[in-house]
């Protein structure tokens, strides 16, 4: 699972990735390979991230600044999701009475439609 890739393996594996693009993403620090004696090394998570970066650059024509903003937002979203899940676990461990009180509070205060995660077509 936890595989390691060198620059040339990464460029080979990802169709849209060119050496120039890779150099640009690393310079912008939106992807952070591990420095080793044999040069930078990429992990599976870096590959998945590079695929996303290529999609955003290629199909949405995103420039450096836009790309940095989007990646920063995605990272913040995942950090928040992770913390929310931990909080949900903490709540799940509470007695039923507490859980019900929290559930009621959530229902009363959450009037958005945040439960599906679908983007609404305009």
């Amino acid at each position: 699972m936890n595989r390691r890739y060198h620059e040339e393996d990464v460029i080979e594996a990802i169709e849209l990735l060119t050496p120039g693009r890779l150099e640009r993403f690393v310079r912008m620090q939106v992807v952070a390979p591990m420095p080793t004696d044999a040069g930078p090394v990429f992990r599976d998570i870096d590959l998945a991230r590079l695929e996303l970066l290529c999609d955003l650059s290629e199909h949405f024509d995103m420039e450096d600044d836009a790309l940095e903003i989007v990646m920063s937002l995605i990272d913040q979203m995942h950090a928040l999701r992770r913390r929310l899940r931990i909080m949900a676990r903490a709540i799940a461990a509470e007695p039923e009475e507490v859980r019900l009180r929290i559930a009621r509070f959530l229902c009363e205060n959450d009037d958005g439609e945040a439960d599906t995660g679908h983007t609404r077509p305009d």
Partner: protein
Amino acid sequence: MDPYEALGVRKTATDAEIRKAYRKIAKESHPDLNPDDKDAEARFKAASAAYDLLKDPEMRARYDRGEIDASGQERPERHFYREYADATGNPYQAGRGFEGFDPSDIFADILRQRTEGGFGFGGTNGGPRTTFRARGPDLRYSMEVPFMDAVKGATTRITLPTGGTLDVKIPEGTKDGQTIRLRGKGGPGIGGGPAGDAYVTISVHPHPVFRREGDDILIALPVSIDEAVLGDKVEAPTIDGPVKVTVPKGASSGQMLRLRGRGVKNPRTGKRGDQKIELKIVMPPGIDSELETFMKNWRKKHAYNPRRGMKA
């Protein structure tokens, strides 16, 4: 699936229309931009395969003439970032560690409420600030360390992309994916504000002999058939060097021995885990005639079925 249908365009669509249709689907269905949508991946993959075919005028013409079909256009298996994003030790969100709460944090919100009593948080400064001060940004790095350094602790120096170096103290018992916080080693503050922190995510390089499971160390220990049959004291590696262990008489492959307190020190409790040794019986390099004759004779009187009671 018909690629035109997958993109929702007519057969006469222009290249620009095809690109626009693909962008629209990618926007709504890219799994990394819609992480809660379970069906996003299937929609996105279908659209991507269709777009791969139709964006190339030559391929599109061949498809229209019926020379090729839509299959074979599937991209190699791809993993989306969202599959990794939530894993512990994701180096891209390490800036939000759990040692201490950031005051802007949602968890801090919960803890704050009881003591707040109607006043703003952190009212000790007295009055509004007139000058702008800000803490420097947190910086994130990742590094790979040898198995033994993570288990026993070490100090390593990493070279930063900016050219500087950072000394990282790897505490004893560091786990794969763990993040180490170096206070004040991040970006400089603004207007006299304090520097941010550096977060270093540790990736542990696997060891050829030792594996780690929580605080326990696992190894597979090869033993000869005579050691297994007769029992013996043999040498086994541990993270502190070799020790003698007793192979019990009549040991089987898969049998586990436990060396208490020979595992990894838990940084929280200070207690060490165990080393678990799985015995693995290894045959001699060749079966000589003496052994063969002995086994043939032995089988006549002592044959046994180790698979008895095994139900599929």
